[in-house]
């Protein structure tokens, strides 16, 4: 089994991102911005899939890491004179500090990973729904803290004047890096053992797998990736508010992951592009139309309703998502002997 064969999915996914970036670079500005925005969402969704895909635990809390990454990125990247206006209460050394783009993003990722380590230490001991509710509580706490602790965030007011350093190469580079890191994690022994626990937690424990520890590793890594996504989003728009990262984006990123299929990295990539495309098509539909002489106005909100309807349709008709939890491959190999065993457990569960 060649190295190329084993990692062909990684190459295919990278090619998809590169094609999107190339198309964007020869497109008009509007299209370019749509592609950049999609690539940023891709970073977030790939980050989500590192945790949700490998562990099987649904997390609503990752949007909290977007907030953390976005604000930490802003602390590092904004010019000192702007920070004097909006973030006067930051420590002096932080106000004086101004870092270039990549270190700022990595700073955001580092803080998010550190926070993930602290909150994950207790949270990862939980399983199933309790874990989901725990992560949801974390998101709510993040939202409340960043909305009211004006010293670090300018409260519910917005931060403006973030350096606009996110262009196509930056967004595509981040997406490629996220995919590569996620793939490496998935193929590592940690990733493999974590996915074993996803299929059958009791059996994994019985085989000596420390499920909580592995989940914690995935939680920290995914928090870091998602935080980069949050920081990219903030530096793409140039403004940052806490409300930007709450229920709506939680829904959007989870929808992307579920539509593509939570079980695989390919699912994250396919789902992001599919939902982004559907969302843009729905945006075109919104507004005034003249169909055969009849004026029809579709009010804003059609897009959100359409997105929710698409997600529901996928859940009802294809609960495992577009990819069905499989990775994209060009050259398939004979199914591993593990496959029928997994099929049996899933059949038993749906009974």
């Amino acid at each position, binding site marked *: 089994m060649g190295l190329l064969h084993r990692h062909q999915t990684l190459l295919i996914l990278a090619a998809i991102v590169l094609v999107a970036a190339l198309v964007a670079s020869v497109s008009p500005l509007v299209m370019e911005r749509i592609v950049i925005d999609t690539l940023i969402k891709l970073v977030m969704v790939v980050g989500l899939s590192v945790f949700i895909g490998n562990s*099987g*635990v*649904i997390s609503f809390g990752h949007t909290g890491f977007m907030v953390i990454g976005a604000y930490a990125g802003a602390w590092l990247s904004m010019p000192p004179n702007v920070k004097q206006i909006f973030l006067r209460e930051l420590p002096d050394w932080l106000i004086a500090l101004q870092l270039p783009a990549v270190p700022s993003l990595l700073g955001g990722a580092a803080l998010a990973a550190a926070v993930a380590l602290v909150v994950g230490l*207790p*949270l990862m*001991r*939980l399983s*199933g*729904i*309790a874990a*989901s*509710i*725990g992560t*949801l*509580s*974390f998101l*709510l*706490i993040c939202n*409340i*803290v960043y*909305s*009211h*602790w004006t010293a670090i965030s300018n409260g519910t007011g917005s931060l403006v004047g973030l350096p606009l350093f996110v262009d196509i190469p930056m967004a595509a580079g981040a997406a490629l890096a996220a995919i590569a890191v996620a793939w490496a994690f998935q193929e590592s022994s940690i990733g493999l053992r974590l996915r074993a626990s996803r299929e059958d937690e*009791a059996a994994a424990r019985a085989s000596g797998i420390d499920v909580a520890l592995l989940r914690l590793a995935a939680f920290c890594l995914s928090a870091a990736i998602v935080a980069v996504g949050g920081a990219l989003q903030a530096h793409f728009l140039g403004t940052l508010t806490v409300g930007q990262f709450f*229920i709506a984006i939680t*829904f959007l990123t*989870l*929808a992307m992951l*579920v539509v593509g299929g*939570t079980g695989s990295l390919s699912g994250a990539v396919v789902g992001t592009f599919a939902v982004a495309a559907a969302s843009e098509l729905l945006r075109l539909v919104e507004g005034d139309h003249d169909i055969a002489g009849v004026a029809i106005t579709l*009010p804003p*909100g*059609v897009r*959100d*309703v359409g*997105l*929710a*309807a698409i*997600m*529901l349709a996928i*859940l*009802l008709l294809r*609960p495992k998502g577009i990819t069905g939890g499989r990775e994209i491959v060009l050259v398939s190999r004979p199914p591993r002997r593990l496959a029928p065993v997994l099929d049996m457990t899933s059949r038993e*569960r*749906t*009974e």
Partner: protein
Amino acid sequence: MTAALQLIVDALSVGSLYALSALGIGLIFGIMRLINFAHGEFIMVGAYAAMLTAAIWAPFAVIVAIAVALAVALLTERLAFRRLRASPPATLLITSFAVSYLLQNLMVLIEGARPQTVDFLSALTRSMDVGGVRLPWINVVTIAVTAVLLALLALFLRRTRFGRMTRAAASDFRMARLLGVRADRVIAIAFALSGLLAAAVAVLLLAQTGTVSPVMGLQLALVGFVATVIGGMGSLSGAVLGGLTVGVVTVLLQSLLPAELRPFRDAFVYGLVIAVLLVRPGGLFRSAAAMQERV
């Protein structure tokens, strides 16, 4: 003394709304293992229904709110959740998230995103004077309505055939089915009850605040979840006690926290939720053994 009484009534009235929301979520969770994100939207559509008919006659508005919330609850069950009944809890959770988002944005399409105000039973916001304590009528009414609803529900669940079927299904769905309980019927009953409870919350909330908005259900649904979880998932009395507890803790924190920490009140509440999850994963009011996953 009077301050304490005032605090108790406040805490109980907030806790009552939370308890009703938690019970609506807990009923369905017990049977289907579905944490219903869309419960907040059942409340929201009920409140809009009452708002739109409030001008006609208040009791009529209450009936319309109940009818609409019931219909929406039953419809979502029929169209979305029924087909996914056998899916793992994570899929159900995401589905209810999608249903919630769909209902919310449908309401944005129909009525717009902005909050709207209405004069609905506003006489209730006046206060009565009891031995020097000023108690808003609405708080007393909320507590009374909750008590009556809980008593009726308890009677229904304990004394009627349908009620016993529902409780049996909540404690062990598969066993109940083997003993001849019809899944479709029992789940429909649970959703109907859930819709009814949502309508009650909608009416009480509307009388209290006089405001509706498409996102108004979120806070109550969130509190409902955490209440269900800390109360002990699948236990109905646990859900009620969980809701009351969250309400009481919220009101206590509001009055006990130093002023500069008060904006962070809810962060403390959710922090406590995480603490409860860790210390007693089976819930405050339930033995840990009952939570063990059934294999």
